[in-house]
């Protein structure tokens, strides 16, 4: 039975964060007074959350042309990162023309976001981490298996029930979490070059002159303005 589920499970997400960056975070964490290894050792995450609030950000004069990676250590546990990956690809799986959210490293970005020492990100942190923990616990509760190992139909049913407007009040909080998580995934995905291509952002190229809208665009506007009586 469990063997069968493992076969239908999905490949674990492999973090895009390289070892050099992880070591730099550890250095930062040590400098901030953390025990060496915090954030990488299971069980140290809570201590890391407390310590992260005393960590500094990238400062008021960061290098802009070739930015350094965000300097703060990541706070997600491996299980939370995997749950984030499952959710990322539920929200934006690969299409015929565009890569999946995980292929663009979006789970690592969500980890970077919720781990940041700034007020807006600190405010996002508890709901995101609790939501990911809830998702894993719900997989266990409904199907007695970890999220990654669920049969694909079971996983799809779980995620789809979360996305639907809740009738069961116990799903209110997870549903609100999903809205916020989705907004972060959308932001993270479409701010990449493949995201630009998929959404139709054609700028960020040097032009000799600004041409203004094409005839096709102007025709579209004229049609719409006519409908509005303008």
């Amino acid at each position: 039975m469990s063997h069968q589920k493992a076969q239908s499970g999905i490949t674990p997400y492999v973090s895009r964060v390289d070892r050099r960056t992880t070591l730099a975070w550890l250095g930062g964490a040590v400098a901030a007074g953390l025990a060496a290894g915090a954030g990488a050792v299971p069980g140290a995450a809570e201590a890391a959350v407390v310590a992260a609030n005393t960590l500094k950000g990238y400062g008021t004069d960061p290098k802009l042309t070739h930015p350094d990676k965000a300097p703060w250590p990541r706070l997600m546990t491996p299980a939370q990162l995997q749950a984030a990956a499952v959710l990322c690809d539920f929200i934006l799986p690969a299409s015929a023309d565009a890569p999946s959210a995980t292929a663009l490293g979006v789970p690592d970005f969500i980890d970077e976001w919720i781990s940041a020492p700034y007020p807006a990100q600190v405010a996002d942190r508890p709901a995101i981490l609790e939501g990911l923990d809830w998702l894993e616990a719900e997989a266990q509760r409904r199907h007695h298996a970890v999220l990654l190992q669920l049969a694909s139909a079971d996983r799809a049913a779980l995620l789809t029930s979360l996305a639907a407007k809740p009738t069961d009040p116990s799903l209110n909080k997870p549903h609100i979490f999903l809205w916020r998580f989705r907004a972060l995934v959308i932001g993270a995905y479409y701010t990449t070059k493949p995201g630009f291509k998929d959404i139709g952002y054609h700028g960020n190229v040097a032009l000799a002159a600004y041409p203004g809208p094409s005839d096709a665009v102007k025709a579209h506007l004229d049609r719409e303005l006519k409908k509005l009586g303008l």
Partner: protein
Amino acid sequence: MSEPYDVIIVGSGAGGGMSAYTLTKAGLKVLLLEAGRNYDPVTETPMFNIPSEAPLRGTSTPDKPFGFYDATVDGGWQVPNEPYTIAEGSEPFMWWRPRMMGGRTNHWGRISLRFGPLDFKPKSRDGLGQDWPITYDELAPWYDKVERLIGVTGRAQGLPNTPDSPDGCLQPPPTPRAYEQFVTRGFNGLGIPVAAMHAAVLTQPLNGRAACFYATSCGRGCSIKANFQSTTVLLPPAMATGNLDIRANALVYQVDLDRTGKAKGVTFVDRVTGEHHSVTARSVVLAAGACESARILLNSKSAAFPDGLCNTHGMVGRYLMDSVGTSVSGQFPALENLPPTNDDGMSVGHIYVPWWGYEKQSRKQLPFPRGYHIEMGGGRAMPGMNLGAMLSASGDLTVGSALREDARRIYGSYIGFAGRGEMIPNEDCYTDLDPQVKDKWGIPVLRFHWKWSEHETGQAAHMVQTFLEVIDKLGGKPTPGYQTDGKQAISRGGEIIHEVGTVRMGHSPEDSVVNAYGQSWAVKNLFVTDGAVLVSSPDKNPTLSILALAWRSSDHLAGLARRGEL
């Protein structure tokens, strides 16, 4: 060069940079002191960088309040080691400061509107505020010179109190973007004229500077020097004269006087070493930014000026103003599914709406006395993290291919409307020294006092009504969260970063600190050439006027120096 210099200039932004340009070209030996670090837009500007290369996708944080790629160095709403305070009972006030060569000209919005004839005579117009000691016609030649030097887009359109420039001053404005052509029809449908933007962005090469290539937001600065920054347009030619020394990290806190009561120089602390230095010159120009220039005067105490230099009549720090601001955005079904197009343009709007209600106000048909203009943003701008919120606000919780379709449909269908309006100076808005709080180096810091009047809150309410009308006219839906009550809708004091006043010019020492040339009434070889001297704060963004006034004042200073009259 050796001391004494002919002139010490404090600050390297619009006022200080313009003064350095004019005075060095006139042959005077100048020392320019800048509180921030050296900064080179050519090598430091993140041209073409995209959000995914930056921490948090470039989202704004307390370290970089306008986003990671914003040019501002070591600053924003707070500067490390340099606090300010808000007086008890005051409404909020925010003070944006950078610590970099060129100051705020590196990141500013580039909107460059001339003040009009009415703006110089507000008291004569409706009895409110104070008249300037100069007219529009007196300043106009310097507006012409500034536009020709820095490069400003625009077109003569013959609109009231919105001066047209003489032929040859302005560069051709770029074609309006798709959403700008759309919104123009909406405003015209309400009987409101739309004008070409006046922006300090080159659309044609000028003096060795390249024209805009219509990519990379101006707020990052510009490595090809296509927009106006003091660091690319004013300081290099001033350096080329051989008459300019520049010292960075020099935080000036005091003007020093000689025995006869004339300025003999300034004293500063080096922000890096913490050492204090005094330097000498035959004249001093303060251009540290309206509030910082007032702070220097207030901290320059002596037996003759126990309440601060030039403050005998208690005028220093008075009549602090900002612009009135508020914004509403809307989502427009008519813009959904537009064929993808490059909307980058010159990053600032290609159009704006000048104030259109002069006639109604002269007939007392509006419940607020002064006007505002409208700036718009939207279209298919480079996506940022706010796209998530946009999609959350405009649909169901879709995923997968349905989400991708929603994203393509919604993206580019929003337009943001922002009002920028005139504030009338009042007795409740001023700055003084905090009696307790000092900065890292022991120098007393500014304390702000702020209170909007009904003139401003009434105007903010009208802005919101106008935005809602035009959104409706164009079949759009306003984004929830806007306020129709002007008291709730209005920006916080200082938030629009147009703080001016505090060392105003006037007709006599009783009503002002400096004369029509920015020359102090009390110390004749001390000048102020930043926004502190402004007598009113019209809706037009102040930088172009600061540049014109600084040039005019510096010409006057150079004339006095030449004739040995300083």
